């Protein structure tokens, strides 16, 4: 019965206005935010008596301009991609996961334990999945606790995930300091198996940078998250709960079960991010390695508009700023980059509804 004439009649609209509209609404706010940040950056640089052009050139040279810098950007982007995906996944279900910090640390810790437990010489094809499962499980457990408390007692996930950060990080610290550390340090011994090849192993000009195979895992993870959110029944339910819980309930979706699933999976994604540092870079778990990356994930999700592709781009962008801060250190304090990050986040947060309203107004005028 699906008459092809009707389908043909619809097609132009499908590829036409709504898509352009959606692309505009997705892209313009971050671009406006970037512009605002650039202007603020100019003013800051000028206030140090430096030339903005020179500083930005230096920033680009130090990040994208040479293989080492670019590798470092990719390395940093990898962890941010995982924590950003984790936060955005929760937000799609209407939940704010602020526990990325501890979930990432727990994941890294579990990956290190697994790598230590495996016999020397375990092939990567076996060791990597095992480490990832362990990391995901650890992050998932950390994520499921607030989810359970929310569904069972109505405890707000923001409070619980924040508080759980302290508990989990303190527990890990106690494990490391009391039981597992190499003397005089706060890290575990080197893992026996699961070491990821670095980019430098494939292409020597990346020598010295920490970028590694976890980058591929991050991109794949973004793909999996995209597929789950937009193609699976679970994702349909999850987004429905995030957008309109009472309609989801009406549609036979168990809101509590979706919350439980969403926060657990969110924790798992953050947890798997731990492999970037542990398997890819240092080959051991070190106390405090996750510091900041979990919270940065919130900014990445925000700027990435909770879309997996957006998250990857935002992770790359924030990693560039962070690495760029080191490159321009000679001219301006590297904390300037922290300020710029803050400006971008604020500008995105403000510009989303603002820019939308302007876009809608412009469209209405052009329609009229």
């Amino acid at each position, binding site marked *: *019965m*699906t*008459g092809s004439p*009707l*389908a043909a*009649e*619809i097609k132009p*609209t*499908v590829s036409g206005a*709504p898509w352009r509209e959606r692309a505009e609404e997705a892209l313009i706010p971050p671009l406006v935010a970037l512009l605002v940040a650039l202007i603020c950056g100019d003013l800051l640089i000028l206030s140090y008596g430096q030339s903005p052009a020179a500083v930005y050139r230096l920033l680009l040279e130090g990040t994208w301009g040479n293989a080492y810098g670019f590798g470092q950007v990719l390395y940093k982007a990898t962890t941010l991609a995982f924590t950003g995906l984790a936060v955005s996944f929760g937000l799609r279900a209407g939940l704010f996961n602020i526990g990325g910090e501890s979930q990432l640390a727990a994941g890294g810790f579990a990956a290190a334990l697994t790598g230590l437990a495996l016999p020397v010489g375990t092939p990567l094809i076996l060791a990597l999945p095992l480490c990832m499962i362990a990391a995901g499980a650890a992050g998932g457990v950390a994520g499921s606790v607030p989810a359970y408390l929310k569904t069972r007692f109505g405890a707000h996930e923001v409070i619980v995930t924040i508080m759980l950060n302290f508990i989990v990080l303190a527990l890990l610290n106690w494990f490391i300091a009391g039981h597992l550390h190499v003397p005089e340090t706060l890290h575990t011994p080197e893992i026996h198996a699961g070491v990821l090849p670095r980019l430098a192993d494939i292409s020597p000009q990346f020598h010295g940078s920490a970028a590694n195979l976890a980058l591929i895992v991050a991109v794949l993870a973004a793909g999996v998250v995209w597929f789950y959110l937009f*193609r*699976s*029944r*679970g994702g*349909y*339910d999850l*987004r*429905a709960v995030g*957008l*309109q819980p*009472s*309609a*989801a*309930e*009406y*549609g*036979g*979706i*168990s809101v509590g079960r979706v919350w439980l699933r969403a926060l657990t999976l969110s924790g798992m994604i953050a947890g798997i991010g731990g492999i970037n540092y542990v398997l890819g870079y240092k080959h051991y778990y070190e106390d405090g390695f996750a510091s900041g990356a979990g919270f940065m994930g919130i900014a990445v999700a925000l700027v990435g508009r909770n879309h997996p592709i957006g998250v990857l781009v935002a992770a790359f962008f924030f990693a560039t700023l962070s690495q760029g801060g080191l490159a321009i250190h000679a001219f301006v304090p590297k904390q300037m980059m922290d300020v710029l990050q803050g400006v971008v986040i604020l500008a995105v947060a403000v510009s989303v509804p603002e820019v939308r309203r302007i876009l809608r107004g412009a469209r209405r005028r052009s329609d009229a």
Partner: protein
Amino acid sequence: MKEREAAVRLSGIEKSFGAIMANHGASLEVMPGEIHALVGENGAGKSTLMRILGGLMKPDAGRVEVNGRDVTGWSTNDAIAAGIGIVHQHFMLVPTLSVAENLVLGCEPKTRGVVLDYNRAADDVRKLSSETGLVIAPERLVSDLSVGEAQRVEILKVLFRGARILVLDEPTAVLSPPEVRELWAVLRRLRDKGNTIVLITHRLDEVVELSDTITVMRAGQTVARIKTSETTPAEIARLMVGREVSLSAGKRVQPIARPTNVRPDQGLDVRNLGITGSHGVRVVDGVTFKVQPGEILGIAGVEGNGQTELIEALAGLRTVAGGEILIDGNDITRRSVAIRHDAGLSHIPEDRHRRGLILEYTVADNLILGLQKHFAKRGVIDGDRVLENALEEISSFDIRPPNPVLPARALSGGNQQKVVVAREMGRSFSVLLASQPTRGVDVGAIEFIHQQLLDARAKGKAILLVSAELNEVLALSDRIAVMYRGKFAVVMPSAEASEEVLGEYMIGTKKGNAA
């Protein structure tokens, strides 16, 4: 009488929102020192008219006069300064502040211009309390107040700002009977002190008890202005719900031959259902009924008498306090929404924005809400089938614009409703709950949806219809139940019912046969 200046005179008011005419030739004349009831069905335009009076909206045409002065198009601040105080249906109080702090909010008395003079604020409140009889301790926190007390604070708040013309929007919707009586006493006292009161309501018993004059609105228009002493509830009800032009007026469904091979337990069977509401009140109290295959049972009643709660409980969206619900003989009283779907329940919810649709989702995605599992294989949704299904429903229900990937938000209200109806009537079901199925829908779509319901009835579906439109209930139902204060006041064959008869049960002047 004639020489007296009207306190409020609105004449020839026009106001439209897009294609919807909220006010179309609305007028209102309120004399000083009277309690004036503004009645009408939901969507008759009462609230819009009051918003125009309060300066929250500007009319497209017409004239607003207060105490003889032309104030058309004034602002909220002008309205407040002129002594108009609107008490909204939803409380606008800060729960963490005390009564006194809430009252002085925005015009706080201060010592040396900085520090809040708390004692003076409390004294002011106490003084106003004793003058009006709205007794409330100024130091209590608003969050500790009962609903009735919070409303008293709302009224005090507008009086505190010097209001002499009070507009109360559905003030009794949330009150218990003793609180209602107290409120009446307060309003009478305020009137006797020379205040003018406009009472918006659709509960006719209140109108008759309290008001001096009544203005009836219907479909955005003022249809009557009568002295309360010269009318009857039945007449008001007729003015409220009657339509000069109505597609379904006078039409009645013909009884159809019931399917013969029906088992006695088929259809919907509700036994002694009880539901407890938010304030511990029994909102549905011992309701028992059956809907048989091939039958439409219509539930009439003034809104807020438990219909919403009843439907939500049947749909699995509200827990029941007691009783049983059976579909085709299966007890589903405590089953999940999903299990009820499988048992053969379909549900057109009364609020399409909150329940029926996910506005950000596309039309195609909305058309599978509740049916996800039938469109998924091993957890993956089959996009082609979703689109195919959407194109089918769009063409058979004439959903416009015929674009399955448009977000539901972009559709007009009528077309949004068609999406909901298409989905719920398109699935396989044996029992349909149709709650306000044509609310906010244009005339053509109403006819279409009515035909769909009758077709489903002819196919042997059991249909429970709840509607605020008496015409709709009368035109479609085989039997009609009237719900009043959580109970079925009466259940009668449609052939014996008329607007007049139903109206009397609806306002409780007549008690009926039903348990």
